[in-house]
């Protein structure tokens, strides 16, 4: 997907002004945070689980080459085929080639964020395949021709009315002409449409929440069961996964699963947890004839070697964005690429460059809520600050900000001038504000007031001045 992150400021303002979006965001706002808190409170060992998860992930990342090879060997042993994609382009080409070789026409897809990252859908459609997303949220945004706005609830930005309208426009061709109003009716109608697609599909593509090295198994979690149908009904099953998804053992995967559902949706477990290992064996009643895994790097090994390695612990639960007040105000589309919120503000600049996405690490108050809830304890605010440092070193930020910072540093290292300057500033502002005690506007400070707020005036004297006088009085 072509990044639009350079336009973050404009897009965030549109988002704030989009009343329908604000309705959808407000409705979603507290739901996930409250559900997560309830689920975590019910599990006394949650903090210990987080520590174990960090240890598992760190160990795996430290030995990533080893576990990837073990995983690949196990996949091949079970009759599957592993493909290595170093870039997004490689990944697209590999997926298209597999689909072509199998003579496919129709392809069903389970939700895959790495699929969004590398742009699988676009490549397949360009190659002439019909691609149908089967996750309800993904299906909705596919009909709307929009990218996901959240990594686990891709259509969270849509209201019920908008979805009813989309179904009405797009389901007519299936003879479904009634305009629906209730959620269960809409779910049933989507199910009815998708059922036909599952049966007709030649290839099913899913992502992976975890890849288990010891057995060559891929694990996906869903709440709709669409993942099972996507990976077991078509002749060919393709798993697309980032290389950081591998974990050593099934035991490790289950530790992480206990954190994933609770952190994401507040569920102890998602409704479905699907383990797939290789193609159908002789005697199996169902399953695909071909089983492919596309292991995607796309910048991950670079992260492995620099200050951003901790980001590779991410299990894509979405807790950081569910607790981010900036995400809560503007939604996911403003971020302009595939991954929104705090984790996206780290990943996007690393993937598409700081020149394109420099706003993302800056559009954060460093309040730390994301790190507090991250199941694998990724220090997101620190990583965002590191990106700001990188931006500063590359001289990519705004020049006036740079000059302002340089002036401030000079000021703070000259205490006599600092004391005098702050004394003048406090006095002047207090005089200018007069009796009102606050400003409604001020030249050169327009940005503060664009936030819809007044500026309280200082009391008039600096503390240092008061203190010096008091000391003299005492002495």
């Amino acid at each position, binding site marked *: 997907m072509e990044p639009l992150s350079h336009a973050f400021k404009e897009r*965030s303002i549109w988002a704030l002004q989009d009343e329908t979006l604000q309705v959808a965001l407000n409705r979603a706002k507290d739901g996930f945070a409250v559900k997560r808190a309830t689920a975590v409170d019910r599990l006394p060992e949650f903090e210990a689980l987080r520590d174990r998860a960090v240890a598992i992930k760190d160990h795996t990342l430290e030995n990533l080459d080893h576990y990837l090879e073990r995983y690949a060997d196990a996949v091949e042993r079970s009759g599957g085929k592993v493909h290595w994609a170093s870039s997004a382009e490689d990944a697209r080409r590999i997926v298209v080639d597999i689909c072509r070789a199998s003579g496919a026409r129709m392809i069903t897809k389970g939700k895959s964020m790495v699929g969004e990252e590398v742009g699988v859908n676009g490549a397949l459609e360009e190659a002439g395949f019909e691609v149908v997303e089967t996750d309800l949220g993904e299906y909705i945004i596919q009909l709307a021709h929009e990218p996901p706005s959240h990594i686990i609830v891709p259509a969270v930005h849509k209201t019920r009315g908008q979805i009813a309208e989309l179904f009405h426009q797009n389901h007519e061709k299936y003879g479904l002409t009634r305009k629906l109003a209730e959620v269960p009716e809409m779910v049933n109608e989507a199910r009815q449409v998708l059922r036909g697609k599952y049966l007709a599909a030649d290839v099913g593509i899913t992502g992976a929440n975890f890849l288990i090295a010891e057995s060559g198994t891929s694990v996906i979690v869903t709440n709709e069961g669409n993942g099972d149908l996507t990976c077991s009904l078509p002749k060919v099953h393709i798993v697309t996964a980032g290389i950081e998804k591998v974990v050593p053992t099934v035991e490790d995967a289950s530790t992480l699963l206990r954190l994933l559902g609770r952190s994401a949706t507040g569920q102890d477990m998602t409704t479905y947890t699907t383990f797939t290992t290789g193609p159908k064996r002789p005697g199996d009643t169902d399953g695909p004839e071909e089983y492919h895994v596309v292991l995607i790097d796309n910048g991950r090994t670079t992260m492995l070697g620099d200050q951003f390695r901790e980001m590779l612990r991410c299990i894509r639960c979405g807790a950081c964005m569910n607790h981010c007040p900036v995400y809560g*105000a503007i939604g996911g589309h403003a971020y302009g690429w595939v991954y929104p919120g705090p984790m996206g503000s780290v990943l996007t600049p690393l993937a598409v460059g700081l020149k394109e996405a420099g706003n993302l690490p800056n559009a954060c*108050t460093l309040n*730390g809520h994301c790190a507090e809830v991250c199941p694998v304890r990724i220090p997101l605010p620190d990583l965002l600050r590191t990106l700001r440092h990188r931006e500063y070193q590359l001289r990519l930020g705004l020049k006036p900000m740079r000059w302002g910072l340089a002036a401030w540093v000079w000021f703070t290292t000259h*205490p006599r001038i600092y004391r005098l300057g702050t004394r003048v*500033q406090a006095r002047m502002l207090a005089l200018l504000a007069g009796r009102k005690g*606050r400003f409604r506007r001020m030249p050169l400070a327009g940005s503060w007031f664009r936030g819809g707020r007044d500026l309280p005036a200082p*009391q008039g004297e600096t503390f*240092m001045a008061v*203190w010096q006088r008091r000391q003299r009085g005492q002495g």
Partner: protein
Amino acid sequence: MNAPGAASGGADAGTRPRVGLFVTCLANIYRPNVGLAAVTLLEQAGCHVEVPMTQTCCGQPSYNNGDLDGAAKTARQTIEAFEDFDYVVAPSGSCGGMLRDFPRLFASEPGWQQRARAMTDKTYELISFLTDVRDVTSVDAAYPHRVTYHDSCHGLRALGIKEQPRRLLATVRGLELAELADSEICCGFGGTFCVKYPEISGRMVADKAAAINATEAGVLLGGDLGCLLNIAGRLGREGGRVRVYHVAEVLAGMADVPGLGDPRRPKGGA
């Protein structure tokens, strides 16, 4: 105030810990009353308070905007001014948290890193210093108002300040605390964030103001002037009647001046 050495008066400076007050640039410029309240509380807690005149800023503007060298320059200034005290105390969780981060700025300068670490080990935010280090359990103040409290993010998450101010507020005569819904959600200040992304910041502080109004409290308290300026600015713009004070002003019995952004009183006033 119920604390060791509280009633000892000023004679035994030798046995009292020497506390360097890091007043913070916002309190220095905007709200000297917060600095005075901090001094009062610290003296009541049996501390000998000094205010180094060479102190300036904690360096957060540079640190959070990627200028780590600039932040290190400002930090050296602070370390030199404060490293000889028994304790360094700031009436702010944000600046206190920044001081605690100093060692990170000197990864390639072991000498300075050691000095930074030695200083940060004895650096505290004011209220948690009173309760956790000086074992203060009550204050001698009256404030007959219904108040609500905003947990500033840096104090809350970097320094674990949550119960400490509530414990002391519970001992203020006449004070009724109405808990704020979403008190742990950021107000949208975020240092330079609030001027870099004013529209987003404005939405966040409008949400905060709505939650404050819903408590029907007449006063909002908090431990960080950055957040409080932002919130007071929003409440003022809405024309509301909620007044805003730093929690230290109330605990020290010094909230008898106009609140942040309130009209100045005709005569006198600070």
